[in-house]
């Protein structure tokens, strides 16, 4: 049985990977997009987002790259790697199973 923190962490990973599957993004982009898509349910701040991003990078699932962004600043853009894509589909599948199971329990 996974602990609560692990589950939340896993969820965070899944969400970030999914965002990056759409297109390469920088940190602020990820948090913005997440907030938009979930209509403000998930608001991630820097303290949650960056440790997760750096951990994903260490796992080799995402890759960071400096690119120029709007208003003359450099931003670090993250791209999903091949193994990241694999991880995303595995995590999504797992999430599907779990969420269906939970729904069944709740509706029982």
């Amino acid at each position, binding site marked *: 049985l996974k602990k609560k923190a692990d589950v939340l962490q896993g969820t965070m990973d899944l969400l970030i990977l999914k965002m990056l599957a759409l297109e390469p993004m*920088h*940190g*602020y*982009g990820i948090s*913005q997009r997440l907030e938009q898509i979930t209509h403000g349910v998930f608001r991630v*701040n*820097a*303290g949650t987002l*960056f*440790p997760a991003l*750096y*951990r994903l990078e*260490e*796992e*080799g699932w995402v890759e960071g790259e*400096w690119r120029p*962004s*709007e*208003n003359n*600043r*450099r*931003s*670090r853009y993250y791209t999903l790697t091949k*193994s990241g894509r694999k991880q995303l589909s595995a995590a999504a599948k797992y999430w599907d199973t779990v969420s269906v199971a939970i729904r069944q329990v709740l509706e029982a």
Partner: protein
Amino acid sequence: MSLRAIRKLIRILRQFISRRQIDRDMGEELESFIAASANEGIRRGLTPEQAQQIARSQAGPIYRVKESIRDVRSEFMFDALWQDVRHGVRILRKNRGFAFTAVVSVAIGIACSTVVFVFANAMLYEAPALIKEPDRVVGLWLGQRTKPDHRFDIQLSNPQFEALRSVQDVFDDMALYSRTTVVANVGDVTEPMNIEMVSGNHFSMLGVMPAIGRAIGPEDDKPGASGAAMISYDFWQTDFGRRPEVLGRTIRIGSRDYTIIGVTPRGFSGIMIDWYEFPKVWVPFHQYASPAALMRRGTSNPVIARLKPGIDLVTAETRLNQFINVTIDPSEDYKNSHVDRPDLMSVAPIRGGRIQPWVRNRVSSLFVALMAVSILVLCASCFNVGSFLIGQASARRHEMAVRLALGATRKRVIRQIMTESLMLALMASAVGLTLTLLLSKVALRIPKLFGFVPLYSGPSLTLNVVLFALFLTFAASFVFGFLPALIASRRSPWNMLQDSSVGWIHSGLRLSPRQVLLTLQVTFAVVLAITGAIYARSLYNIVRIDPGFSPDHVWMATINLGRIPQDRREMVDRELLSAASRSPGVQSAALSWPRPSDGAMLAPRFKLPGDPDFYDMPGLMVTENYFQTLGTRLTAGRPFTDSIEDTSSAVIVNEALANKLWPGKSVIGQMTRVRLNSNEADRQVIGVVAQANCSDHLREMRPCIYLPFQALGSLSLGIVELRVSNDAKTADSFRQLAREVNPELLVYDFKTLEDHMRERIAPQRISAFATVILALVGVILSAIGCYSVFSSMVRESTRELALHMALGASSNNLLLRVMLRAGTLCVIGVAAGSIIGLQVMRRLQDQLFNVNVGDAGLLLGVGLSLVIVAGVASFLPARSIAKTDPGAVLKVI
């Protein structure tokens, strides 16, 4: 290692190299995040300043975010660790006194356990040195289905060995060997020595290469081959000065000459270690024993074998047991044997199989007890350090609070404190390992430790030992570091900056962590004290044991008549005794076989005429004056005479047997049936000897019988016992006397009966002694610990006590309250310790010697002395506090 793992490793390495850059980038990335967030704010209509402010406060402090990123990335781990180490060095240098005490006391704990481990490892686990692929070498034993655990302690006879060897298909090779003591001439010197007879394939099967010369091979082990021998490296060194000319010299054993063809490699000591000395000489089986003797069914030898590659123990055992009826000839008559017919075979790895199976259990339970006590000692020292660190943790509250407030994660703070304790523990283990080497060298000096030769060339720090010490180190640092780390990082910075500790006066049932630890320390001290006291009692009983005879002024020596023709031996025996009893200073002389307390070795089979079965009975063969010489007496009947009737049909029993078989009846004249080897006869009881033990059972008088010395005909070996009026020069004058009786008569191994008795109880004595010492060390450690913890706890609560005094409490009242609290803790500890200690001791009862574990006086003594110690330990610091001036204290703080 998978490709993915390698890739990941390379990535981490690359990141590690560029970690400074990554750290800077991290800052820039966060700034860009905030800028983007601020831009969004401006777009929504905020002023740039407002947007900037809101974006920053939403992101949280940048250093904190950075810290938590560093926490998840491996490239920063080393930096953090390095930082922790440097910090630790600073802290430990600041508290040099504490660091020193902690290192020394934990080192003592680690050393105690590791020394025990060194010996246990060498005796119960390690494979014999210098053997090729020792994990494929096994020993074979026979056992019986009906016995508990099948008692695999029967060796194979040579015919059984040959039968099995011809059918088995699981071993590359099978070899046998046998150890014996002989008298050998090397040059002009004649001395008794241990030799090993080995089959021709022994050395090639073990893969042992000679230091010089060649090893004994199959061609040497054929009837008719010229005698060849190998000598041990030590023998080569001591008697031949390691000169290569030793090859070609001869050793005379019995009436046969053996040419030295090689020297075994340094450190090779044969297979078995439960023998008082290592073998000095190896000779081929067929050279030493006649073919007829080799084919005798009654003679059995240890068998070793090398498993074929890929065959495991279970497979081998299953397969061998299919051949059990081939191995043990169904027509073979076991009636004349001292064992019942075996029907099972076991394959035991040689690793850890250096002690015969029936001794192994006794040895291992002894080590378990010693290990348990030394782990307790280690725990006591860990608790000392732990409670000190907790004290420091509360003293370092401010430091920790500042660190937490500055963004360190809790994990980080815990890691820092754990690093400190690990550093302490590592230093302690370095000191501990050095101590281990010293202590085990000292322990090796104790002659015949545990009655075995435990190690060959002194202890060395093998991988096993170092791993064990490291395991203890990590465990210890966890035990004493983790709780303080939790406490130091537990509270929020805000709470930690305030002073909040559980005090002495008004905390009710609440206990501070240190008070819990203090109670635990008392508990451990009590367990150790009980252990020590009970073992000390046991030791006292062992030393004061009554063997049933008076061993003072009695000398013993081995006589060897191997060179005297069989038909003249009886006469030589008789002449020797009469010459001895005529010589000045000798009051009485006797012969026996074996030694007075080795009766179990002879083990005649005994029954009453009506009984269906024989049973083993310790016994001795003795001459007429034996009882008089040993200082025991006959309570009824008469001693043996030289007459033929006595030799063939008389027996003397001890009172223990008489009381068991014929309680309240007249014993003289009762009939018994005794079988000794193949000699079976009805024997009439002609005498009863007062309480006397002839086996090494120490706990009580055991039944035993005495037979006439010539009951087995003329032996080539005997033990002579002499009661003398003056101990000086006994050995020399008796040797001279023996030479005059017959120059071919060899006499050696002189010792007093007292020394012999002391050797017999050496295992029990040494283990009890070691336990007492260990327990004493533990009690002292925990007493020091309790005292220092208590006094520092009281010192730290100066402020609390001063406040109470300022508010009008009298100092006597405060003293009473502190003592009451301390007393409660002590009582809890003593109670818990007594319960645990007694339970532990109940389990070890079989190692104790006539000690009643529940002995009330003993427990009362232990409890009382501990309460007194605790009382003094709490009274002194408490009184000094109660005397202080509250005004001064409150101002200072």
